[in-house]
């Protein structure tokens, strides 16, 4: 059937992208001057290095290594961090570092969407009004403020100078929810400001276009309230771009949290990527970046497919 073929095509395309991206990462790592095994355990003995070389497939050439890594990835063996004298499974590290990142991203998305949807609807509905102009300027400015500058300044004001929250750290929500939320406020704000601006702008543009549609006038002529017209008739058809972009950001944000996690010392996946790169844990680095890239491509593809299947308008185009 039509949709099944589309699905297969997308899946093939998606896996190709991820495979090529990760292979390039291997190649990049291969280009590092010196022996990768020596990088992993700089102080290890010759025997340890040999074991590691064998364990990671580094002794089988670039293609052999890549195949080793890929086949192990697919069976759920994500490789190891090699520390002096020992190792940690990347899976273990992931179990620990995924939840903080996911909470961070989830909160940021919720905050951004909750603010952006009414803001976008109202400023589009009142296009050209003072409210719209002020909101547009403020949002356009804040979307340009680099996340790290915002994070540093927020932390300077609210944590260092006012002392309202702790400047760094992370607490699980299941242990101490209050501390969890308090620690999350600043990082979430840093991420959400940019997101809110871009979501509002996306939604505003689409809503302005939708408001000119006949079916909106038609809905208004039924005598229903403006609020109902906006929510029931304008929001849905205008929200495709917004939701697409929000879903895409689920993947993209995992990379984007690196800075925020570093500044606020949150042990998330971004922090781990930065750590693995800094400490030259190439195998772990490759795995982590592959996951981020996979997440991005996965959300990209899924959103594309979902809008294809659910939006009657794209069906109309296909018919």
């Amino acid at each position, binding site marked *: 059937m039509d949709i099944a073929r589309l699905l297969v095509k997308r899946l093939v395309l998606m896996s190709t992208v991820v495979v090529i991206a990760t292979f390039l990462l291997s190649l990049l790592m291969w280009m590092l001057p010196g022996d990768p095994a020596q990088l992993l355990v700089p102080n290890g003995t010759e025997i340890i290095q040999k074991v590691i070389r064998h364990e990671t497939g580094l002794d089988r050439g670039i293609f052999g290594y890549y195949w080793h890594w890929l086949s192990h990835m697919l069976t759920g063996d994500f490789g190891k961090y090699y520390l002096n004298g020992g190792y940690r499974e990347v899976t273990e590290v992931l179990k620990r570092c995924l939840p903080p990142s996911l909470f961070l991203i989830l909160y940021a998305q919720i905050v951004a969407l909750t603010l952006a949807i009414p803001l976008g609807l109202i400023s589009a509905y009142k296009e050209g009004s003072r409210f719209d102009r002020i909101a547009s300027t403020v949002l356009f400015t804040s979307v340009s403020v680099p996340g790290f500058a915002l994070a540093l300044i927020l932390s300077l004001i609210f944590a260092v100078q006012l002392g309202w929250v702790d400047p760094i750290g992370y607490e699980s929500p299941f242990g101490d929810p209050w501390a969890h939320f308090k620690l999350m406020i600043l990082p979430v704000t840093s991420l959400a400001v940019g997101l809110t601006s871009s979501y509002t702008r996306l939604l505003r543009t689409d809503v302005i276009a939708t408001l000119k549609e006949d079916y909106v006038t038609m809905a208004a002529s039924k*005598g*229903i309230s403006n609020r109902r017209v906006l929510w029931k008739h304008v929001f849905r058809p205008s929200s495709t771009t917004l939701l697409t972009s929000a879903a895409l950001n689920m993947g993209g944000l995992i990379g984007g949290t690196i800075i925020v996690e570093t500044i606020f010392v949150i042990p998330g996946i971004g922090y781990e990527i930065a750590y693995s790169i800094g400490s030259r844990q190439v195998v772990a680095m490759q795995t982590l970046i592959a996951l981020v890239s996979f997440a991005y491509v996965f959300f990209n593809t899924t959103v594309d497919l979902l809008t294809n299947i659910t939006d009657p308008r794209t069906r109309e185009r296909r018919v």
Partner: protein
Amino acid sequence: MSSLLKIDDMSVRFQTPRGNLKAVNNVSIELLAGESLGVVGESGSGKTVLSRATMGLLPGTATRTGTITYNGQDISNLPKDEVRELWGTGMAMIFQDPMTALNPVRRIGSQLTESLTVRLGMNKKDAKEKAIELLKRVRIPDPEAMLRKFPYQLSGGMRQRIMIAIAVSCEPELLFADEPTTALDVTVQAQVLELLTELRKEANMAMILVTHDLGVVAGHTDKIAVMYAGDVVEYAPTRQLFANMKMPYTEALLKSIPRLETPTGSRLPVIEGRLPDPTKNEPGCPFANRCPYVTDKCRAEKPPLTDGGNNHFYRCWFPIGGVK
């Protein structure tokens, strides 16, 4: 019969980057309950603005003056919320293009029952029953299945019937039909017009039919207002107008009706020349530049709306057939 709608001296202006645009000038029209009025003119003549302004569906850049009396109540200065109370239940509107006037992402059922549940306070079950009955009235086969469909699954004619069903769902007393057939095939056009007239007679509903096609209004209206450049230029009972045409413009419009033998593609009537710039205030008759019978007087002075007897009004210095 009692007066349902009385428009008195209504003007509409738009604020545009080029200045003040005069869309409708001092129009006065009266409509009795159950009566049908055709508003005819080229695109740009202000006929659509007239109907939308009467209902109060204007963009924020528009200003409307004059009084509108609906059922004996002056509605021209009512707050927006109270005007909205009339929409759907008192006055309803059918839009020109059924392809764009139905929400593409909502099912027919939800669009059709919306007025019923929100405006009439019906529960879901009653609303569904009523919706099926409405679909039957507009002759849609298998109405139950129709409720589950999306607009893209329907043809233009079907969509237009759905739109009519939505418009009449709350049994309005006055229906505005804005070019209801322009976007449809010729054969479907006739069916839709027939349907509108039938529904109107059944419920004693008044209708304002806006069109550029004099042929459309001929069999379906009681009286006709011809508009040109924002003015009503001829206003008469339908029979009277066709029997005793006064305005050169109306005559030109009649000549330009596309016939069946007219090749497809030439959709709009062609009258030589253009409408005058609606942002300028030029002296003389606005039609002077295009009128075959133009004289110096026409270019110098704008003719007033003249009463020609038999409820026939026209705006011309030298009407066809001479002044009585």
